């Protein structure tokens, strides 16, 4: 079965003055794929992702996200993607229920649908007893799981996760990855940026950016074979050494 591409980037480039932050990157991501987008600090990951989610206009090249053009259809892109990062997630001074209602509203869901989604989400995460508590009072791991669920509220085709699981304990981190597998299994594409290589091992395919270019792109297994090492951490070290 050949799956459709939900992200297609071709020679995508972004320059700031005479500095080329993203240098002609080309890649595709398939429906339901978990795609890891790696790179050292300053390699160009964030700039590339900003172009894909429609908040930064490319300097040259082309890209389609969820079937929409990154130059001309950025509003349609935003409606069809979810986004979660550790830096911006939920509002600490709203309750669990209020956050869900708020983001449902932002995504333009009808009231009835929000109510339905809210009940479903609270019960799936086992938050029944604390749904009226402020999000600020929840442990970090719960916040992250809730934040991921909220990014899926409007049933987006793609979810962008920007360093999602830093700092959580190993069990919670695995529960989080089980949620990611579930979403991917249901056809949602997952685009993850991280510079923690153990997370890279969970991805179907991984790209590694070095100084604005994609220097490697394959399954973690094949990358490890190609570089003749045991872990993605070693793949990364071989590619990205001494660049600062």
């Amino acid at each position, binding site marked *: 079965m050949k799956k459709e591409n939900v992200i297609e980037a071709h020679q995508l480039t972004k320059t700031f003055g005479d500095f080329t932050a993203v240098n002609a990157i080309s890649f595709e991501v398939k429906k339901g794929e978990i795609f890891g987008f790696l790179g050292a600090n300053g390699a160009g990951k964030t700039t590339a992702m900003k172009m894909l989610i429609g908040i930064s206009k490319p300097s040259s090249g082309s890209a389609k996200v969820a079937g929409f053009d990154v130059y001309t259809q950025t509003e349609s892109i935003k409606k069809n993607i979810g986004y979660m990062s550790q830096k911006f997630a939920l509002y600490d001074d709203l309750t669990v229920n209020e956050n869900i209602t708020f983001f449902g509203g932002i995504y333009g869901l009808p009231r009835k649908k929000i109510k339905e989604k809210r009940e479903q989400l609270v019960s799936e995460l086992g938050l029944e007893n604390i749904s009226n508590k402020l999000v600020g009072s929840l442990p970090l791991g719960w916040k992250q799981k809730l934040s991921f669920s909220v990014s899926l509220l409007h049933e987006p085709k793609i979810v962008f996760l920007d360093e999602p699981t830093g700092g959580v304990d190993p069990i919670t981190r695995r529960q989080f990855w089980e949620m990611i597998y579930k979403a991917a299994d249901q056809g949602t594409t997952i685009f993850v940026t991280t510079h923690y290589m153990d997370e890279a091992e969970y991805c179907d395919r991984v790209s590694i950016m070095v100084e604005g270019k994609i220097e490697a792109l394959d399954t973690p297994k094949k990358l490890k074979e190609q570089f003749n090492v045991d872990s993605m951490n070693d793949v*990364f070290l071989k590619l990205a050494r001494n660049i600062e």
Partner: protein
Amino acid sequence: MSISLSHISKSYKKVKAVQDISFNVNPGELFGLIGSDGAGKTTIFRILTTLLIPDEGTATVAGFDVVKDYKAIRKSVGYMPGRFSLYQDLTVEENLTFFATIFGTTIEENYDLIEDIYVQIEPFKNRRAGKLSGGMKQKLALCCALIHKPKVLFLDEPTTGVDPVSRKEFWEMLKRLQKKEITILVSTPYMDEAALCDRIALIQDGKILEIDTPEAIVNKFPKTIYNVGANNMYKLIQTLQGYEHLYSVFPFGEFVHYTDKRDSFENADLKSYLEKAGLTDIHIEPTLANIEDAFMELAR
């Protein structure tokens, strides 16, 4: 003992941040506190660096009591907090001079200690600290924490948010400092860094789960772990969770780590169970436990 904690507890209002914690760090040891956000690591650092008074228990650092002898401790330790705490609007060189002066010394006096770290940031010595990259900020902070030649060095999550290349270089620096007879207490949420310490304390919810060498902690793991893989990861986890002999299943990269309740594990039995559920490309082989496996087992 370079660092000694005896029955230390600290609460913030209703939250018990650390509860009855005791451990010792030997002179010249590289000791790791391994735990997630909220485990209590920073509270322990603040108590040991005399920035916070414990509710109960006693602790000494370099032979001095953390409450009574706080002034002596402040002169003999270096502390690199989790948040970048240098002056963003001073240059690299000004920051270093400032911290040297505060401790009544000069950059020249202890230059040998910081030399191999400082040379890496020296090309940027006239740049303001706020304009440095993450890796360079971290190196400058380490230089500032070392400039008065401390006996004990406290590093609170020095590698959080830092890319793998800089992380590796940072740990190589710590290994070199250790040879200069500095005792190091370092915390990290990243389990792979635990293996680089002489001894570690695994900590969760303010309590210590285990203290030992990383090898010993891994060797104590009570079960055989199997790497199990199949064509569909989500379905594999779901299916294994329904298996009657399951003890635990956790995703681990391209495989899951599976442990079985039985003493004698039947590879063929599990394989046919997974096949019946419609999974293909099934792969089952024993593998070694790592620190994360040990942590999850202890935290159960």
